[in-house]
């Protein structure tokens, strides 16, 4: 039982990472119809910044958080300007060229990160908390709880943003019909840029809370990116709650796979989950809109 619970809580923590990445995807996708595959690498870049701030430069946690946010948001804006905006201006987004452009951007980040980090082994990063609590008789790291709490807070914040604020409502409008939005005086390009800023913020948060869980590993950017996609697809495109559910499903699923099947092949859990979802309910559990066929 203890093993099960330990795996469960670990799954919740890792799942929260996936959920946060999925939430970032949703923010961008819902107002631009672009799936930003570089999101995982952006998170990894944030983790790297965490590492430098905490392990190398010994900055306090709060300063690190700010540095990570500034860094990731800046990268996110750079990506929007360079790899996304040229396509937003074209009718029909110009085919799938944006996919290749964002993939190229993620490649650049990943290589740059590897160069900067060098050949050093994967280093642990101290988290904001270092203790544990006891839940149902099992020791759970404080940082795990932080990750889960961060995901829930972000989801609620995004829901409020979309429903209650001018910008959030405008973003939903732009997501549905850019032309009508333009005619009503909403600057669609500015809104898209805002989407990238918000997504960058969420990703930065994810990086900060996940740093102690994943450590400084420069090769996992794309892995997280793809797992974030699986979380999104499982939960349902266009649904914030789906992101959370999908992330937890994947995270817990992986830990259970480790426990009951074989931890060496953990990555198969994700593959099985996505193939299952596509076979049974392709739009995802909370799927609202069908992904547009290209």
């Amino acid at each position, binding site marked *: 039982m203890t093993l099960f619970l330990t795996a469960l809580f670990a799954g919740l923590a890792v799942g929260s990472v996936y959920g946060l990445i999925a939430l970032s995807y949703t923010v961008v996708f819902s107002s631009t119809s672009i799936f930003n595959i570089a999101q995982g690498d952006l998170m990894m870049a944030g983790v790297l910044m965490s590492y430098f701030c905490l392990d190398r430069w010994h900055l306090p946690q709060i300063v690190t958080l700010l540095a990570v946010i500034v860094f990731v948001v800046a990268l996110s804006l750079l990506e929007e300007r360079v790899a996304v905006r040229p396509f937003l201006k074209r009718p029909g987004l110009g085919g799938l060229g944006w996919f290749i452009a964002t993939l190229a951007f993620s490649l650049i980040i990943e290589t740059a990160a590897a160069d900067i980090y060098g050949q050093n082994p994967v280093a642990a990063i101290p988290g904001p908390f270092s203790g544990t609590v006891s839940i149902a008789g099992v020791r759970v790291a404080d940082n795990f709880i932080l990750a889960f709490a961060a995901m829930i807070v972000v989801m609620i914040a995004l829901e409020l943003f979309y429903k209650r604020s001018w910008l959030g409502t405008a973003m*939903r409008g732009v997501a*549905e019909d850019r032309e009508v939005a333009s005619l*009503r005086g*909403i600057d669609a390009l500015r809104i898209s840029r805002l989407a990238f800023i918000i997504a960058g913020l969420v990703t930065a948060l994810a990086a900060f809370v996940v740093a102690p869980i994943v450590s400084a590993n420069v090769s996992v950017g794309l892995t997280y990116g793809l797992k974030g996609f699986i979380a999104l697809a499982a939960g349902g495109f266009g649904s914030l709650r789906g992101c959370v559910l999908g992330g937890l499903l994947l995270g817990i699923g992986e830990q259970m796979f480790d426990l009951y099947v074989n931890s060496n092949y953990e990555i198969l859990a994700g593959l099985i989950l996505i193939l299952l979802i596509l076979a049974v309910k392709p739009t995802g559990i909370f799927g609202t809109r069908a992904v547009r066929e290209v």
Partner: protein
Amino acid sequence: MSAGEPLLNVTDLHAGYGSLRAVAGITFQVNEGETVALVGRNGAGKTTSLLAIAGLRYGRFPGTVSLGGKDLSSASPRQIVEAGLAHVPEGHRIFRSLSVEENLRLGAYTRRRSGNKAVAAAIERVYNLFPILRKYSTRNAGFLSGGEQQMVALGQALMADPKVLMLDEPTSGLAPMVIRDIYDAISKLRDEGLAILIVEQSIPRALANSSRCYVMERGRIVMSGDSTALAGNEHVFAIVRGTEDVSVAAEQPAV
């Protein structure tokens, strides 16, 4: 702005898509408080003209648009709305996944800084104009009928408190009773002094609801005049029906 100057002044406007020239140099005016109609066959270039005036241009084309003396020829759609020109495209296009009230609020996006009270008052005015929408304020707009969606679209445009309202076939495909409701609303707006440019498929309806009318064919204006005068002119019907082939002054100009 002096009394004789037009409110909306369009001079030698061209527009198109890439190498296709859909509008080949049109010139017209809308004066303050006036309702002007624009008629023509499908494909004559009416929709493209209005979209271009509203700032949605797909390519660089010559021509000038000015509103109240202010040059809007290269302005963005947002700037044009802020200047006081609102366009309602054809096909009752609104945000179907948002509620009626959210749709209307977004219409006031450019005025969002004027405070919630001002926006709420504007929404009230729209509900007064289209009472049936009040019932549906929290309903998702996608569940409304075509006519009701068109009312939302009109209301949305009015939320920005425009000086000139452009309507592209506001009643196409709608039931006669709904058409009457919408034109009643348009009359009220006219009485309040709003300048309106309206594209209409039905010539009699266009002429009955405007003081002046322009006829477009193949990207150019081929006829214009007072609506009462044009009402008795057979050529207008023939051009729009396509039975009379108007030889347009020159063929499409070289790109």
